[in-house]
């Protein structure tokens, strides 16, 4: 188990890379940026994922989901001030991305899983400026913060 200081630094490094680029670092990059060994960085990736509702691609050390972001494209496309390079882990986490981009417009675009027709939410900090259609709802078939094994499927 890594010490708390390293967990803090590792979490912040991964999240800030996701914020800046929409991509997560490989553990070899994490090793370089944190000044730790490759083996320790590889372990750190798995420790960090275990602390979050995220996951690595099965059988690998590759970050696939680091909430609120998904590194593998999902149906939840996210644009920041008109720049689309992010994907949200799920529809609910998409609504939390705004806290990582203070003062910026977050636009979430997704198809409805029932009919494929578009959904749009726009928000800036506390303010929701667009909900199209106005009848939009959220629904989960699994408990928020629940069983880790179900996360990629909820």
């Amino acid at each position, binding site marked *: 188990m890594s010490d*708390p200081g390293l*967990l*803090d*630094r590792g*979490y*912040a490094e991964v*999240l*800030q890379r996701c*914020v800046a680029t929409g991509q997560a670092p490989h553990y070899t990059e994490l090793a370089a940026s944190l000044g730790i060994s490759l083996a320790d960085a590889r372990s750190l990736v798995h420790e*960090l994922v275990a*602390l979050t509702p995220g996951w690595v691609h099965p059988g690998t050390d590759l970050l696939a989901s680091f909430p*609120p972001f998904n590194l593998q494209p999902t149906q*939840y496309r996210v644009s920041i001030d008109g720049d689309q390079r992010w994907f949200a882990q*799920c*529809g*609910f*986490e*998409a*609504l*939390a991305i705004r*806290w*990582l981009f203070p003062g910026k417009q977050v636009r*979430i675009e*997704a198809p*409805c*899983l*029932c*009919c494929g*027709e578009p*959904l749009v*939410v726009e*928000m800036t900090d*506390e303010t*929701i400026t667009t*909900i199209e*259609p106005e*009848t*939009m*709802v*959220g*629904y*989960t*078939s*699994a*408990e*928020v*913060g629940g069983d880790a094994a179900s996360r990629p499927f*909820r």
Partner: protein
Amino acid sequence: MNLFRSEDHARNWDRYDEAMTSSLRPVTDWADIFANRYFRERGRPDFVSWTRSETGLSAFAELRRRARS
């Protein structure tokens, strides 16, 4: 954890589960739940330590409570 155009659309989803009907709520409700401090604090440099603090644990407990209610 998905968004749908309306309640009817969610209920027509092939993975809809009646047992989780309590989670079927307006998107504004979920936006409010995901405004919990647990999400707002993610960008801080000591986030992992913060989640283990009294404040962080309290925020997470509040999140679970609101998500279930």
